[in-house]
Structure formats: structure tokens, C-alpha cells
């Protein structure tokens, strides 16, 4: 009887400890999943392939937005100063890959100054051999209809400002608007989003 009781107690403790650790893992894992994978959020604005949060950098940010920004865009500014949009798919919804080439084209956004930067999926810059990491309101050359265009990918494309994306991993494009117009601040969904389309086949 004594042996049986001791065995049961050890067994119960082991089960309890396993379940407790499982609950901790579930709680922390679900937090990580929500922050890194969940695409739903009441503060997310989706415009074409681009999305942005209306509360990025704001003291009014909820704790999920604050944690997500800390992971993916620490030290962001509020939208009266800077607005951020991010794209990790092309216009058809296919995930962006660094080994593929893309054309990004659009009209300069309604802001005092803007830039589009190519990041790897760890949110750091690619090791670009030409040291070109972005196209911005200073360096962009507009065509006859007032549009800019750039290419991303492992090789340059004729006539396009090239942002090299060496390797084979996820690609994230970030559009920053410095001192955006009041209209856009009030309604971030009014952005005319730059198009993102694949250049050639990408196996």
C-alpha cells in the first residue's frame, strides 16, 4: 500500500509538472504566434500588398501592437511624424522571396519625403554589393507620367533602380512616409500603393 501511494504521488507530480510546463509553453507560444504570424488586428490597414498599423509608435498602442512594433520596427515614430507600410507579398498575394525579381512602381506618396527599403525576413538589410538599400524621394527618377520604379532581386534589371536581395529567404519591403499629408494621416487607407509584380519566372 505504501509503495502504491508513493508511486501514485510521484506519478501525479510528474503529470502535474509536465502539464504546468505545457501550459507555460502554450501561453508563451501563443503569444509568439500572435505577434509574429497572426495577420488580424483591429489597427492594421491593408492597401494593395501593403499594410500598416495606425497605432505604430503611439502611446495609445495596445500591448500587442507595442510588442509587435518592438519586434519588427522598434523606435518607430507616430503617424503624424512618419507612416510605415510593409509588404511581404506581391500584388497577387504570393510571398516575396529574395531569389525572385520584382518590379515596384508607383506615384510618389503624399508626404514631404518617402523611401522604400528592402529588408530580409529578419528585418535587417541585405548585404547589397552595390550598397543600395532603398529608393527614396531624393534618388528616385520619375518617368513621363510621374512614376518611380525599382527592381529587387539577385540581378539588376535594365533601366531600373536595383535593390539587391542576395540569397534565398523572405523579403520584406517597407515604405516610409515622413511628414505625411494630413489627409493620409487621417485615412491611411487612402495611400495609392506602389504595385509589386514579379519579373520573369521564379521557381
Amino acid at each position, binding site marked *: 500500500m505504501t509503495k502504491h501511494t508513493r508511486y501514485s504521488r510521484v506519478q501525479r507530480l510528474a503529470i502535474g509538472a509536465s502539464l504546468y510546463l505545457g*501550459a507555460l509553453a502554450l501561453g508563451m507560444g501563443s503569444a509568439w504566434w500572435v505577434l509574429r504570424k497572426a495577420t488580424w488586428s483591429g489597427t492594421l490597414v491593408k492597401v494593395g500588398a501593403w499594410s500598416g498599423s495606425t497605432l505604430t509608435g503611439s502611446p495609445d498602442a495596445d500591448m500587442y501592437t507595442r510588442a509587435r512594433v*518592438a519586434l519588427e*520596427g522598434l523606435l518607430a*515614430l507616430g503617424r503624424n511624424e512618419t507612416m510605415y507600410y510593409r509588404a511581404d507579398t506581391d500584388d497577387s498575394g504570393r510571398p516575396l522571396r529574395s531569389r525572385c525579381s520584382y518590379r515596384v512602381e508607383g506615384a510618389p506618396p503624399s508626404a514631404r519625403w518617402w523611401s522604400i527599403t528592402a529588408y530580409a525576413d529578419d528585418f*535587417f538589410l541585405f548585404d547589397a554589393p552595390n550598397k543600395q538599400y532603398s529608393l527614396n524621394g531624393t534618388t528616385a527618377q520619375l518617368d513621363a507620367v510621374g512614376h518611380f520604379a525599382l527592381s529587387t532581386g539577385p540581378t539588376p534589371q535594365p533601366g531600373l533602380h536595383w535593390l539587391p536581395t542576395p540569397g534565398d529567404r523572405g523579403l520584406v519591403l517597407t515604405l516610409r512616409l515622413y511628414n505625411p499629408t494630413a489627409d493620409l494621416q487621417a485615412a491611411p487607407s487612402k495611400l495609392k500603393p506602389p504595385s509589386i509584380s514579379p519579373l520573369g519566372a521564379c521557381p
Partner: protein
Amino acid sequence: MKNWSFRQRLWFYRALTLGATAVIAHMALVWALPRLIMHQVMAGQAAQEMNMLNQAAFPPPVDASSRRVVMPSPDMLYSVCVFDVSQGPVRVTAHPGLSSYWSIALYGANSDNFFVINDRAVGKAAIDLWLVSKGPNAADPTVPVGAQVVVTPSEKGFLLMRVLTGDYEAEKSVLEPARRTLVCHKV
């Protein structure tokens, strides 16, 4: 529940405890993450190497080797300072005198951007900020006339000065001296 067996009651309380544990762990991680990341930025190895506590530091222009803070902007030159107002006000002055975009942003220990001032607000004038904590030194009589008092939501925080550079090589002779006008010191 009255008629439940010992085993049933045991599992009921286990499920309850486990559910509460999972929820608490979830919320704690979401709450703590920005604070932990900010702590790393303000007190980690890089911060110590740059000696930026109540002192301005000037990181090199952003490139692929810039891996201390996610999403570094290659179009900005940064000047930084970790402020600690626990022992008294911290004074921040700068005089970039640029007509292109620059800003000074202050972040609390929870990563919130609680203050920003830019070239549009200041023009080509100098700025003089006195960072004070909530409480007694919020009304420090030594604040000079014309200085702007900023009450910080946390005793420790991060200052980030951004100076726009669309073409660094062409502009560095003007922009480098401008961003190095940032001074940050304990009063």
C-alpha cells in the same frame, strides 16, 4: 461537482490552473517583450561600448552590418543618447540648422514614442530640452528661460535623433557636423 470523484475534481482543478497559467504566461510575455528589448538597447553591450548614458553617441551610417535595432533606415543618420532622469534633469541641446528633415524623438522604457520635435517646428533655431521625471524635479527652478521642459514617463529612456540623408556621400560634409551638434548631459 458534488458527486465528482477525487480524480475528476483533481483534473478539474488542474485544467483551471493550467488555463490560468497559460493566460498569465501569454500576457506576461506580450507585456514584457518591448521592455526587455528596450532594456537591451539601452543597457546592452552596444550601449555600453558607445558610452551613451546621459551622453550623445554617433553611430556610423546604416548599412548591412547595422544589426542592433531592427529595420534600420539607410536614409537616416542617427545620433543617440540614453537618458536617466532618476538623479535629476537631463539637458538635451542641438542645433542642426538644416532645411531638410531632422527630428529628435524620445522613447520611454516601454518603447512608446512620447515626444518628438522636428525641423518644421524649430526651423533653423537651436533646441534646448530639459528632461525631467514626474515628481519633485518636474518644476526645477534652474530651467533657463526658453528651454522646453519634457516630463518623461519613465526614469530611463532613449533619445533618437534622425537626420535625413537621401545621398550620404554627397551630403556628409553638411550632415555629419549637423548631427554632431546633439549634446546630452545630466544637469
